[in-house]
């Protein structure tokens, strides 16, 4: 019983890490340019397909392919904002048009990758060959551990970057007051490109890490995106800490619910939590204080 609980917790944290990575992308873009990027999940799919090409196609070792696939995904993200966001950057009330454009882009990206890679799902091998390892009597799928460790490292690096480097502070300054940032000489268009690259790169990493657990298909991003979106809301949309805690919460709820309550309602549990939050605590776990927004 206890052993099962530990196994579920590890699985839940791993799935939750994936949601957290994608949710981080939602939050970073939202706080920077006030736009919700509904194509965020598709970058997980793009990252996974890049990994398919690099590992299954070019037979590169995973430790070269993983960072490269992530960077390539980020580059696609930078291009994405150049086409979708930059043209209307200085237009007032651009929130809705950009958001609707991201919905369209989501469909477009899925169709393009379906066209390139075909409808047959790809199966990526795990980073470790073993199907399971035994630690202290608990059987663990090693890819889950990879997911948890890589996500922790990335979140630490991101936090260091945003809080300890001048560039990170310039990104924050741009998010807080773009016009004043320009008066300081901060190149706002570059900052926006960078934020999109980071956000979509993190999304790509999520897809890369989860690919060995699921299969790689053109539609794989949409389910992840939906739950990551729920994670961001549960965490308090706009909070980085919230995105991480929200993601892990949704991951755990989903995994525990599927095992202890009902497997067939696996996908329903995250949304039950989401609805409860929307009713009783719409600002989420770490909803920002008004004083910090002003």
């Amino acid at each position: 019983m206890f052993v099962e609980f530990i196994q579920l917790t590890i699985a839940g944290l791993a799935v939750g890490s994936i949601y957290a990575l994608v949710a981080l992308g939602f939050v970073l873009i939202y706080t920077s340019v006030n736009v919700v990027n509904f194509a965020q999940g598709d970058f997980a799919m793009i990252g996974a397909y890049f990994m398919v090409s690099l590992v299954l196609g070019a037979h590169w070792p995973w430790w070269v392919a993983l960072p490269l696939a992530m960077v390539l995904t980020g580059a696609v993200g930078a291009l994405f904002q150049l086409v979708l966001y930059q043209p209307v950057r200085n237009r007032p009330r651009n929130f809705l048009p950009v958001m609707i454009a991201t919905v369209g882009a989501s469909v477009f990206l899925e169709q393009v990758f379906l066209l390139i890679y075909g409808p047959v799902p790809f199966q990526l091998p795990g980073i470790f060959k073993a199907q399971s390892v035994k630690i202290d009597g608990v059987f663990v799928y090693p890819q889950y551990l990879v997911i948890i460790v890589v996500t922790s490292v990335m979140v630490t690096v991101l936090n260091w970057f945003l809080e300890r480097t001048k560039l990170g502070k310039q990104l924050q300054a741009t998010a807080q007051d773009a016009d004043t940032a320009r008066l300081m000489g901060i190149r706002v268009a570059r900052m926006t490109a960078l934020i999109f690259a980071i956000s979509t790169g993190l999304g790509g990493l999520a897809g890369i890490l989860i690919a060995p657990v699921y299969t790689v298909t053109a539609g794989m991003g949409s389910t992840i995106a939906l739950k990551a979106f729920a994670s961001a809301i549960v965490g308090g949309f706009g909070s980085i800490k919230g995105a991480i805690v929200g993601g892990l919460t949704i991951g755990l709820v989903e995994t525990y619910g599927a095992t202890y309550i009902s497997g067939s309602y696996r996908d329903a549990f995250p949304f039950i939590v989401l609805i409860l939050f929307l009713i009783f605590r719409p600002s989420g776990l770490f909803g920002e204080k008004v004083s910090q927004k002003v």
Partner: protein
Amino acid sequence: MPNMLEVRNISARYGNVTALHDVSLTVGQGEIIVLLGVNGAGKSTTLKTISGLLHPVRGGITFEGEAIDRMSPESIVRRGIAHVPEGRHVFPGLTVRENLVMGTSNRKVTRAETESDIERILEIFPDLKRLYTQMGWSLSGGQQQMLAIGRGLMARPKLLMLDEPSLGLAPVIIKQVFRTIKSINEAGMTILLVEQNVGLSLKIAHRAYLLETGRMIRTDTADALREDDGFRNALLGVTADE
């Protein structure tokens, strides 16, 4: 002496509303120039047009002989014009130190340069020292104004533009701000000041311009305008607190 900044016959508009008609002004090296006028006269618009947040629809602006009226704010601040906006616009979620560091974004700096520049700013605004690690939003209006001016100076500008630094501050703090502006100027900084406090502005400025509904209606030396009771009374009687 050639003028550092020359604004020639500019017009500017927000959407369909013309905010500036045919406005001209010059700023010479080492001067404090004050731009006076009531709310909505176009003072802030003039500064925004100079710093590149707005582009003039007619006329031209040159800085040290170079046309800057089509440039972005990012490029203009790199050429040496720092604009401290109305309402201070301190970054709320950054600390005092981080706000100051953001001021160096207009150039490549080494860590040592940044540190010595911060030292210099803290000498001008000693109050900021004990607030060093506090968030921008937690500062009082006067403290935010000091920080905003300090952040502007971190750009090492040749021309510092201040938009209503006295806005919303207590009289005693206002006097302190004006004293600081004067001393920054005496240390060699050229300043273009936008103000509604006519009395104090004319005391520290060399020359003044008066804007009314987007047109420049008068310019003279500060001394001459100070002696002109008609001018002072016409302009609001804002000087009651003098």
